[in-house]
Every structure is written in structure tokens, then in C-alpha cells.
């Protein structure tokens, strides 16, 4: 029974190692927020220029263990995984003592909240799981995944549940999804707004009034993007046709106006104005 549970933890370890390695590589490569690595362990423990290599080295170690565990049944990789998680436990303990303000960085920048007992408990559980696999039959991880029985599936689910309960990152990810920055504060691609404009009824009804289909000016204000096209009014006078596209929602509102050279709005008349908002 114990052997079954221990053997079933091999896929769990594989999943955690894969997620950790990918998240670390993504965080190390992502330069959108310079200085973020100074708040993540173990990068926080080394000098500035070694932070990216330290994170990438950690990810490389995880990848090697992942491939070794899944492709072979050699005990070297199982002992390696046990040692890796034991050392991680020590590093997290040291991080908590020396830099209580930084996160563990286990899953990249999602793990930015300070190291707590749950993160420490998780690495201890992972160490115990890895030690447990040493005494199981030397079969590769993929073979375990391919031949999972119902009892082993239950053991996998149990292992994942324990790790999920010890992962503060899940709450952090949920909070980020729930409290997403409002549309006004999110950078949004002008090309998306332009394609939404081109597929709108306002565009189709005003296209014949435009002298050119290339905008002469475009800017963004709050959750609206504006495109200005040279055109002419129904009477034939030159005018600027300005479209305003709401940047949120699947079928955003599109508003249109015509303004003459003196800055006076020109009555559009009974033309269809916009698609209703469904945001």
C-alpha cells in the first residue's frame, strides 16, 4: 500500500518540476518589470548580475531531474530529486531568516509573496515524496503515468491536493484574475482596436465618406481609442471622420463623428451609430 502511494508520487513530482522550471524561465526572460528578480529567492541571495543565471540554473536543474525521473528509473535521479528538494528546504529556511520580505520564486514571479510556513511545508512534503520514490520499483515515470491504476490515481490526487493546500501561489493567481487592472490601466494594442473598427457597422456605413482608409491620427484616452480619417461630408465639404472604439468587451461600442475644418461637428443624420455594448 505504502509502495503504491510512493510510486504514484512520481507524476506529481514531474508535474511540479515542469511547472517550476517553465515559470522560472518565463520570469527570467520576461523583461517587462526590471528589478522584479530582486524580490524573488534564490535570485535575491546573489548579486544583481547573477540573478538571471541563478534562476535559469535552478530551472535547468529542475529540467534535468524531470527528464531523468520521467525517462529512466535510475535511482540517481530519485536521490537527485530528494537532495534538490532537501536543499530547497534549507534555502527557503535561510531566505526566510535573511530576507523575510522576498518570495520563494518557486513558480517564478507568482511566488512573490514572502516565504511562509506553507512554502516551507511544501518543500518538506516534496522531499518526503522524492525520498519515498527511492524505494519503489525502478520504472520510468512515463511508464507509471501510462499504467496508473484507480488506487494510484487516488494517491496522485491526494498528493496534488496536499501540495495545493500548501501553495500560496494558487490564492495569488486567483486574486490576480479577480482583481485584474481596469481597462483604463491596461496597455492595449492599437491593431486590435483597428480590426474591431473595420468589422463594425459604423465603419461600413461611413467607409464611402472616407478619402483614405489609412488613419491620419490615432490616440488612446482611458478605455477609448480614436482613429481619424480624412473624408468629406454628405454635402461634399472636406471633414475629418473620427471613430472612437471602446477597448473592452467582445462587441465593443463604436462611435463616429464628423468634424469640419473649423472644429464644428457635422450632423450625421440617420446613419446607424454603433453596435450595442456587451462588455
Amino acid at each position, binding site marked *: 500500500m505504502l509502495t503504491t502511494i510512493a510510486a504514484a508520487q512520481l507524476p506529481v513530482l514531474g508535474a511540479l518540476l515542469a511547472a517550476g522550471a517553465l515559470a522560472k524561465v518565463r520570469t527570467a526572460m520576461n523583461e517587462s*518589470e*526590471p*528589478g*522584479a528578480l*530582486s524580490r524573488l529567492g534564490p535570485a535575491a541571495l546573489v548579486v544583481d548580475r547573477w540573478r538571471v543565471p541563478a534562476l535559469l540554473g535552478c530551472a535547468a536543474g529542475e529540467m534535468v531531474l524531470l527528464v531523468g525521473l520521467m525517462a529512466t528509473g535510475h535511482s540517481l535521479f530519485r536521490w537527485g530529486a530528494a537532495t534538490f528538494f532537501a536543499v530547497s528546504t534549507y534555502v527557503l529556511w535561510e531566505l526566510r531568516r535573511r530576507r523575510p520580505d522576498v518570495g520563494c520564486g518557486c513558480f517564478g514571479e507568482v511566488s512573490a509573496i514572502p516565504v511562509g510556513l506553507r512554502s516551507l511545508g511544501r518543500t518538506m512534503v516534496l522531499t518526503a515524496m522524492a525520498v519515498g520514490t527511492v524505494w519503489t520499483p525502478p520504472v520510468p515515470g512515463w511508464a507509471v503515468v501510462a499504467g496508473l491504476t484507480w488506487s494510484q490515481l487516488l494517491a496522485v490526487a491526494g498528493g496534488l491536493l496536499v501540495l495545493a493546500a500548501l501553495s500560496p501561489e494558487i490564492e495569488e493567481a486567483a*486574486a490576480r484574475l479577480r*482583481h485584474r*487592472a*481596469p*481597462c*483604463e*490601466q491596461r*496597455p492595449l494594442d*492599437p491593431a486590435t482596436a483597428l480590426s474591431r473598427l473595420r468589422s463594425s457597422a459604423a465603419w461600413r456605413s461611413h467607409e464611402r465618406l472616407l478619402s483614405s482608409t489609412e*488613419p*491620419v*491620427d*490615432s*490616440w*488612446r*484616452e*482611458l478605455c*477609448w481609442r*480614436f482613429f*481619424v480619417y480624412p473624408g468629406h461630408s454628405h454635402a461634399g465639404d472636406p471633414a*475629418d471622420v*473620427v*471613430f*472612437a472604439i471602446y477597448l473592452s468587451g467582445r462587441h465593443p461600442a463604436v*462611435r*463616429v*463623428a*464628423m*468634424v469640419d475644418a473649423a*472644429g464644428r*461637428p457635422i450632423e450625421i443624420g440617420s446613419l446607424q451609430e454603433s453596435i450595442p455594448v456587451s462588455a
Partner: protein
Amino acid sequence: MPHRSVDRRRVLAAAALGRTLDEPGAVPGDGELLQSVTGEILDVSPHLIVIDTPDGREERLVIAPWATAWRGEAVAPADLPPGAQVIIRALRSGRVVDRIWADITRITGVIQSVGSGSGDHTMELYCGPHRGRRTVVIPYRASGRLRVRHPQFEPGYLFDAIGVRENGVAQARLPATSQPPYRWTAVPEPPPGYSGAQSRISGTATWSDAFDHDEQGAAYPMLERSDTDCQEAGVSCAGLPYLALGSVLNVRNVCAGRTSVLPIVACGCMAGRFCDRCLECGTSPRGRIVELSATAFVELGGDLTKGCFNARVGLG
């Protein structure tokens, strides 16, 4: 994409969204309107100052008995030298001098290099893609005062000081803020927006001398990079909404109780890197939300030597 006049954007946006057009300028109703007058001193006496304005007019202003002047330090108005460039805060429709700042300059940027040696230091600063590089001299007698609030005289750290222009050289005299403890590329994240964007945002308003003479406008940090050709825009720790060149801001000086409607005329990419607070009247929320031209700052009741005021900014 070519830009048309940014003034026209306001008209076009108002037409598309059915907004009313607010004309830029001071909003009356907050006490006597302040006026700013800029120019070069032609003559000065204890009671009268004559200046040559940038458009070539000669202005004669009465100096109020309580008026004070600053040129590197507090001086009597009559001691200002002819030829000095001044910004005057004036009362009574711009006829009575209340306060004079002479040859004042503000040096805001990222430290690139610092000259070694004892005595005066020469510092090279990067002031943003639109403002280029500037050289500032830190006289030995001012260095102690500056180092107290700018402990890191190292490349990569931000610098913000107020000084005087002497013989074409900017000389720092006062720290305009406490130096942020992070490098300029490591600006803290804004707090998460829990309940959508706010219609009014509180923070710090500062000034800059990078605007044209007499220009009434503001530089704003949160502009789309693709719209401004500025790869350093869109950074702020104050959780600001995206706006554009030509958008009109309603800027209120909370300390003086004065409000102005000002257009965004420049990219405030360097202002957005400062995550500091203003202590002019109470403690402001962190983050520079707007950088004003010197004349707009003065007309809102700000003191150029203090460098900031607590501001509340909204759109239109």
C-alpha cells in the same frame, strides 16, 4: 502614424463622445487668480521691476512690500541683477509682484556619471528621450545638503534638484525630493485596481523647465508607447489611466485650493519613475501624477523652490 495637431484631438474626441469642451485655463472661484509673468529683468528697484517678456513686450510691475525673491537663496527683489531670467507670481491681473524666482532651473534625470575629485562635482544626467542629457554642477557648499536626501551619487539612480543657471551652467542648490531608493529601471508596481479606475487621482504634482516659455501645459507619464514614439512612457507607481497628448486634465492644488484645466503637451516618462510623496500639506499618496510647466505650477499657487504640491487630477 503622422500626428495632426494635438489641440484638434480634444475637439474630435469631444465630438465623438458627446463631451463638452473645457477651455484650458484657471478655474475661477478659488480666491484671487494668480498670474505668472516671465521674462528678462531690464531694471529693478525696491518698488518697481521692468522686464522684457519673450514676445518682446516691456512689462512694468509694482513690487508688493511683502514680496520676496529667490536666486539660489532668498534675496531682496531689488538685489536681483539685470539680465536675470525671472518667473514672477503676480496679483491684481498681473500688475503686482508677489514672488520672484530668478534664473531658477530644475534638474531631473538619471545619473549617468559623476565627476571625481574634491570640491565641486560635475554630474551627467539622462533626462528622458525628449529632453536628452544635461550636465549639472554640484557646488561643494551645496553637496552636503544634496547628499542628505540623495545618498546614491551612482549611475542608474534618479536625481532631482533645484538650482540656478549661471553663465549657462546649471548649478544645483536644493534637493527637490528624497532620492528614490531603487534604480530608475526598477519602479515599484502600482497598487492593484480593485474597483475600476477612479475619476480623480491624488498624488504629487511637480514642475519642469523643459517646457516652452509661457507654455501652459503638463507632462503625463501614462501614455501609450505606440502613440508617443517613447519607449519609456507608460511607467508609474500611482495606478494612472492611459491618456494621450492633447487630453485635458483638471489639476487641483489641494494645498492652495486652486484648480486649472491644462492640456497634456509632453510625455512625462521621467516623472513616472519617481515614486515619491509630497509633504507640502500633509502627506500625499505616492507617485508623481503630473509634471507641470513652471508658469502653470506658479498659477496654481505652487512654490518653485519647494518643487511639488499635493495634487488631485481628473480628466477634463
